């Protein structure tokens, strides 16, 4: 059976594929000069993942109504400080938000 390729919007698919490719570097640019930046990026990615998981868990608990007003305030302040600290660290190491991701092969993207 011969190959079929049918679409009603080829340009839109090129655009989305480009977006996906841009999100992940083609090669790891590792050399002695940038090893610190690479390590910082990796560590920040892991911290960001944990921060987002904490945030999501907190939102689930807010949604479930299982937190008191005091607890909401305390969690809010903690999450806010964490977010600000991350912004600061990203600035220090010159890492952009979209760079904080890792492709885990068959498991997909980390974030």
């Amino acid at each position, binding site marked *: 059976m011969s190959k079929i390729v*049918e679409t009603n919007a080829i340009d839109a698919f090129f655009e989305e594929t480009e977006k996906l490719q841009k999100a992940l570097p083609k090669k790891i640019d590792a050399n002695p000069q940038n090893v610190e930046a690479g390590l910082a990026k990796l560590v920040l990615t892991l911290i960001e993942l944990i921060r987002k998981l904490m945030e999501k868990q907190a939102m689930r608990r807010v949604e479930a109504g299982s937190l008191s007003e005091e607890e*909401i305030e305390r969690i*809010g302040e903690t999450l806010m400080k964490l977010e600000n600290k991350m912004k600061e660290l990203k600035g220090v190491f010159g890492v952009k938000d979209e760079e904080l991701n890792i492709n885990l092969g068959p498991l997909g993207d980390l974030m």
Partner: protein
Amino acid sequence: MAMYVYGIIDSNDKIDAFVTGLDGVGVYNIPYRDIGALASDLDTPVRDTDEERVLEHETVLEKMIECFTVLPMRFLTVFNEKNNVISMLNEHYNDFREDLDRLHDKTEFGIKVIWPGAVIREKIANAYSKAQVSVPSPDDSPGKSFVKKKFETYKINKEFEEEADRRIAVIDNFFNRNVCEKKLERLKTENMLLNASYLVDNEKQNDFKKAFEEMRAFAGDLKYLFSGPWPPYNFVTKTNTRHDRE
């Protein structure tokens, strides 16, 4: 001499037709028990993925699926010598045999679907805003305001993902009855609603295509890209043959 391996086939026979592989040289079968490895000789090392070579690799597999069940190997699978290929076949024979049986007379089809993600998100955000579920108050502490803001984003994201799941279920329902296996990836980007791979029995290819025609008629504001049949790239069990390679 180094060898480039394209895939594993369910035959230990010679390949009758002349099929050209990378750099225009002929592809042959390296037999092992009742299976074989599709290979061609390689004079110069291939280190980088370039479009021309990827297409050459793909062309070999496309021609071979007309005659055999093929397990596509990853692009750039190179061995130092024939003995290494045979060792690899020996070591992974049971896995290959199992996959060849499972994928016999089956091919892969792909369907990608784009939806207007930004428009849908905005609609959800507007509805959320009108419902005034979590209204900021001047009396709120900074911590509480932060939680309210984050909670709004969380609820909008959740509704967005639920809407995506509902639409994916409708699309998948068109194809589901004609497939053996499927892999569905949701929201790889905000607009890429679905990236699906379906494994289809060769006898059901026409039914599967009819299902696509039905889906197309229903598409509305969805953009789609339907393609196939392909070698079953997404349904081969991942086998680590890397340590044998060059």
